[in-house]
Every structure is written in structure tokens, then in C-alpha cells.
């Protein structure tokens, strides 16, 4: 009973202070909005409209047809027609185009010959993504109408599940839930105790009968609600603005997110017991945030990473949450079919919270 009362006291205090901290409040709403718009619009991994130029020395019916086919893919945006190969190269050098297409004057004859390349793509290889796109372009079919096309047929057919239109927002929005929660939840709690230490409040608090777990729980609880508020913002925007399909149960999303929020808050508390200034706790947050963004599968597919990176990723809560949330939202998976990810998160949270409580000393030495 007394325990509940003390937890309530800490909780109420946190709410009061939070409601007056405009910067933090702005972050709660601002970070999801900015990140979502940034990742949803600006950062687009389906590459379109790459600046390109071409030289058509053949200028035949077939070569013009080929150029038209390339334009139709929308991958290249043919801004210039250059007169010579030299001009094409200088455009590339100047960075005005990323891809140059060179059709030699014997283009038609080359197309007919089975062992000669018909055209050349000049690619700015400094960006691997553009290089990858160029590789795809080489698959563009080219032939005289009378010529049989059989030899160009792909042996393996790709069927795109869950994201038939290949929109990156579909993949990024659920991933952003985890990234934004990691960023804000860890940061808020990492700062929470350090701020009181800096302001001198802690010396007063530790001299009251409040017990360490009571203080920790009282501090965590308001942020759980804030985490849920952010979840609603991200999902609503994702659903109605970016048209991300939500195929799974809302209850399952809620459960997975609650566990993940609690894990991050515990982690933040642990950081706050190690830092002595707010600046230090922010530095530590970045130490967690950066590998989380890069290795969790949010940016790059988990399976494509080297074993060491995978091992590091497995100890990041975000990796497990990404699997959960993408599974539930995009594949409509049942939360219990991914129980091992839940266990991983729960274990992580318990360890972090236990360490935080053990490390936090109600003494000053």
C-alpha cells in the first residue's frame, strides 16, 4: 500500500514536470512526424528518374525503339542527347548525369550477332545503388520483331509477396516504429535520473523513504504512455498517409510495442545510472541508437550482414522488435508464432532493469 502510494507520488511528479517541459513534449510529437516524413518521402530505395544522357550513333528504327523502351522503364530520365562518346563522358565527369547510354553506329548488326554486346552503359559507380540499377537495365530486351526472343527468357520468376507495388514506405514505416521508440524512450529515461542529479533533486529524493524500485517504476510509467502515444501517431500516419497495410491484430501490435517500450525504458534507466551529466547520457544513447539503426534490419536486410554484425544485432532489442512488428503489420503474423522474439525482449528488459536497480545507490558514495 505504501509502496503504491510512493510509486504514485513519483509518477504524478513526472507527469507534472513533463507537462511543463515544452522541449520534451515537442520531441514526443515532433520526432515521429519528422522521421516519418523524412523516411517516407525523401529516403526512397526504389530508384527512379536517374539523370541520364545517350548517344545514338546508329539512329535506326531499332535503336530509337530501344531508347524508347529504356525511357518507358522510368528508371532513367534521358535529359541529354549527346553527339559523341566524348561528350557523354564529360557529362558523366561533370556529374550532370549518372548513367550514359552509348549505342554504336553498328548497333543493328551487333544485336543480330549472338556473341557481341550491342550497347554500352556508362555508369557512375561511386554509388552502389546506381550500379545495381544499371545491372537491371541490361536485362531490357532488344530484338527485331522477327527475331525469336526465347533466349532472353529468365529462368527464375520472382513473385513479390506482401509488397507487390514495391513501395519502400511499406517496409520503412513499421521499421520506424522501432527506431523512433528506441530514440525517444532511451533518451528520455537516460536523461531522467541524471537531470535530477544535476539539479540536486536526487540528494533530496534519496533521503526520503522511497525505495529504488519504486522510484524506477514511477519514472518509467509516464513514458510508457508517451511511447504508446508515439505508436499511435506513427501507425495512424503510416496507415492513412502512406497507405501501409496493417494486416495483423492491433492487440498484437500493442503487446509487442509495450514490451519493446518497457525494454527501452529499462535500458535508458541503466544508462542514467552510469552517466553523471545529461550530456554523457546523450552520448551513451547514441552509442545504442546508431548500431540499432544500422544493424537491426531497419536499413539493411539482416540475412545479408556478415556473421559478426548479425551477432551484434542479436543483442539489440530493435532487431527483435523489427521482426515482430514487420511480421504482425505486414504479414499479418500471429504474435505467438514469434514467441522467441518476445522472450528475447523480456529477458533483455529484466536484465537491464535489474542492473539499473542494483547500480542505483541510495547513497552518494
Amino acid at each position, binding site marked *: 500500500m505504501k509502496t503504491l*502510494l510512493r510509486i*504514485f*507520488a513519483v509518477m504524478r511528479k513526472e507527469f507534472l514536470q513533463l507537462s511543463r517541459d515544452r522541449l520534451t513534449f515537442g520531441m514526443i510529437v515532433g520526432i515521429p512526424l519528422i522521421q516519418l516524413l523524412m523516411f517516407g518521402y525523401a529516403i526512397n530505395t526504389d530508384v527512379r528518374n536517374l539523370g541520364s544522357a545517350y548517344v545514338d550513333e546508329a539512329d535506326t528504327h531499332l535503336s530509337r525503339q530501344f531508347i524508347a523502351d529504356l525511357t518507358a522503364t522510368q528508371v532513367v530520365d534521358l535529359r541529354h542527347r549527346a553527339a559523341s562518346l566524348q561528350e557523354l563522358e564529360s557529362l558523366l565527369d561533370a556529374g550532370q548525369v549518372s548513367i550514359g547510354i552509348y549505342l554504336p553506329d553498328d548497333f543493328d548488326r551487333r544485336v543480330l550477332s549472338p556473341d557481341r554486346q550491342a550497347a554500352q552503359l556508362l555508369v557512375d559507380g561511386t554509388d552502389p545503388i546506381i550500379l545495381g540499377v544499371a545491372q537491371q537495365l541490361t536485362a531490357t530486351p532488344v530484338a527485331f520483331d522477327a527475331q525469336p526472343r526465347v533466349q532472353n527468357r529468365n529462368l527464375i520468376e520472382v513473385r513479390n509477396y506482401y509488397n507487390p507495388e514495391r513501395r519502400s514506405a511499406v517496409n520503412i514505416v513499421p521499421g520506424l516504429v522501432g527506431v523512433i521508440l528506441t530514440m525517444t524512450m532511451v533518451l528520455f529515461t537516460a536523461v531522467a535520473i541524471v537531470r535530477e542529479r544535476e539539479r*540536486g*533533486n536526487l540528494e533530496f529524493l534519496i*533521503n*526520503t*523513504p*522511497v525505495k529504488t524500485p519504486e522510484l524506477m517504476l514511477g519514472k518509467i510509467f509516464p513514458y510508457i504512455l508517451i511511447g504508446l502515444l508515439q505508436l499511435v501517431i506513427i501507425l495512424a500516419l503510416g496507415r492513412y498517409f502512406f497507405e501501409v497495410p496493417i494486416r495483423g491484430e492491433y492487440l498484437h501490435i500493442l503487446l509487442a510495442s509495450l514490451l519493446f517500450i518497457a525494454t527501452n525504458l529499462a535500458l535508458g534507466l541503466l544508462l542514467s545510472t552510469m552517466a553523471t551529466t545529461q550530456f554523457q547520457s546523450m552520448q551513451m544513447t547514441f552509442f545504442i541508437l546508431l548500431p540499432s539503426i544500422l544493424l537491426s534490419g531497419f536499413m539493411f536486410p539482416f540475412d545479408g550482414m556478415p556473421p559478426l554484425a548479425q551477432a551484434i544485432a542479436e543483442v539489440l532489442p530493435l532487431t527483435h522488435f523489427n521482426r515482430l512488428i514487420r511480421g504482425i503489420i505486414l504479414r499479418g503474423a500471429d504474435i505467438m508464432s514469434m514467441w522467441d522474439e518476445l522472450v528475447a525482449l523480456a529477458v533483455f528488459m529484466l536484465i537491464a532493469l535489474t542492473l539499473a536497480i542494483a547500480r542505483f545507490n*541510495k547513497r552518494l558514495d
Partner: protein
Amino acid sequence: MSTPEFAIQARGLTKRFGNLIAVNEVDLDVPSGQIYGFLGPNGCGKSTTIRMLCGLLTPSAGTATVLGLDTRKEAEALKQKIGYMTQKFSLFEDMTVKENLEFVSTIYTLSGKDRRARVAELLTEFNLADRSKQYAGTLSGGQKQRLALAAATLHRPSILFLDEPTSAVDPQNRRDFWETLFELAEQGTTILVSTHYMDEAARCHSLAILDQGCKVADGSPKTLGENIDSQVIEVTADDPNLARASLCKEAQITSITQLGVRLRVLLPKQVTGGEDLVRQNLQQANISAEVEAVFPDLEDVFVSVTELRRAALKKEAA
């Protein structure tokens, strides 16, 4: 329950921070219901001692019992019974006066009815009622100090620890503050207060003088004056600077303090005819002055005990 004779007792209390000895083998006996002072310069170990007595710092050596509870093992049980007012304002500046007191009343788990009554009572008692909706961060120094004392006494502790409570308040507020302390002591609260103001120390029932982590003297202000190893000669001269320069040559004199046109001259007690010694010194230098032996005040006690100790330490080192 009968009140024990001593509310606080410490034996050989020591705190080391690395190589620095912040508090060095301090023994304390603080009687119940008294105002007990810690007098000493900054960095003499006052705050560290208070923090050890509150159970906030673990002593490196020695023991302390507060209200019969061992501060090492029973610090948590102690928290409900003691009040602590930190040197720096440690309540929440982004909460109002009333919200702060309500928080404190809940964290000390007062019963619902008592909570509201007590907060209202303290707001009136500490003259904060018209400030109850003001943010604590916007209060003046004196108001902050009243709020801090109200918060420290809210759960009716038997002992109050006050760490330099008046360092940021004006003289009028200091007077009012001490009035409140005497009222609390009257009601049976033991108060341990640290200060570097002589006039405040003089108001305590008894006090300990701390210097460089050591307790160099203790007792009531009066007995401290009686027991020092110095005699005090007061010199009133037209030109105190000249008198001072002349007296400085006298090897027996341990300290000279100027107060306007007066000089307070300290000599070891065993020097006989100290008054004559001073008079002759001044006559030889052709300086007209009134010379008179006086009863030592607390400042003389402080200067005497710290100077004598430092002189002894210097001799030891040499």
C-alpha cells in the same frame, strides 16, 4: 517512549575520498531536543559529516548512531524519522510550492486526510500560502529556504539536519528562520545545523568547531570561551594599522584581528601579564592606545583553536 539522552552519537567517524581525509575521527554527542551547531570554514567537513549521519555516505571508519539506529545498516529505517535540508535548493523548481509539498507528503506516505491538513498547515506556518501556486524556481532566496524547511519538517521528524541553511538569505529572513528553529526545538526536535556565521553559532545550545576534517573544540558557546587556551586583549588605537604593525613583531602573539579601530589580540593563556606586554610594546613604539583584557567571544574561540592547531601542526612538520 522515553527520550534517550543523546539523539546522535558518533565515535571515530572518518571519511576518506581517495587521499583526502574529509572527516577525521570525529566523536559527537548531540543531546536530544537541542540545537547543535557545526561551525567551520568551507571544506572543513561539515557537509560530509551531515551526509554520513543521514546515511547518505558510508563512513570509511568509525560508527554513528542516530536515534539509536546504525547509519550503516539501518539507513532506510532512519529516513522516515529524519529531515534533511540540503545546502543547495533540492526541491523541484518546475513545480509549484503546493505541488512540491504535496509530493513530499505522499512520498512520506502520510494518510490522505493528514496529507491535506499538513500541507495547508505548513503553507500558513511558513508564510507561503499566497505563494502556493507559484513555481518553486521563481521564489526568492528566503522563500525557497522557507519552502525547503517546510518540506524537511513535513513528516514531523525527530531530528532535522540543516546544511548551511542561511547561506542565501538576508538578515531579516535569517532572524525569522532561527525563531522557527527555536520553536521546533521547543517541540522536542533535535536540530543539527552547520554554519560559517559566528552569530548563528552563538545561538546554538552547543556546537562543535570543525577544521580540516577534525573536531577541534565542542561545548556550549560559553564554556568554549572559558576553556580556550588563549587570553584576549582588546586594543583601541587611533591608528590601528600602526599598532598592528608594531604588535606583529611580538613573538608571543598568536593572532591579531582588526574590527574597525579595535584590534583583538590573542596570546597563549600561560603567558603572564599579557595585558602589560601589549601595553609596553605599544608605548615603546610611541602609539597611544587603550588596552584591556576581555572575555573571549566565539570568533576568538574559533581563531584560537584553529590557529593553535595549525601552529602545532606546522611545528610538528618542521
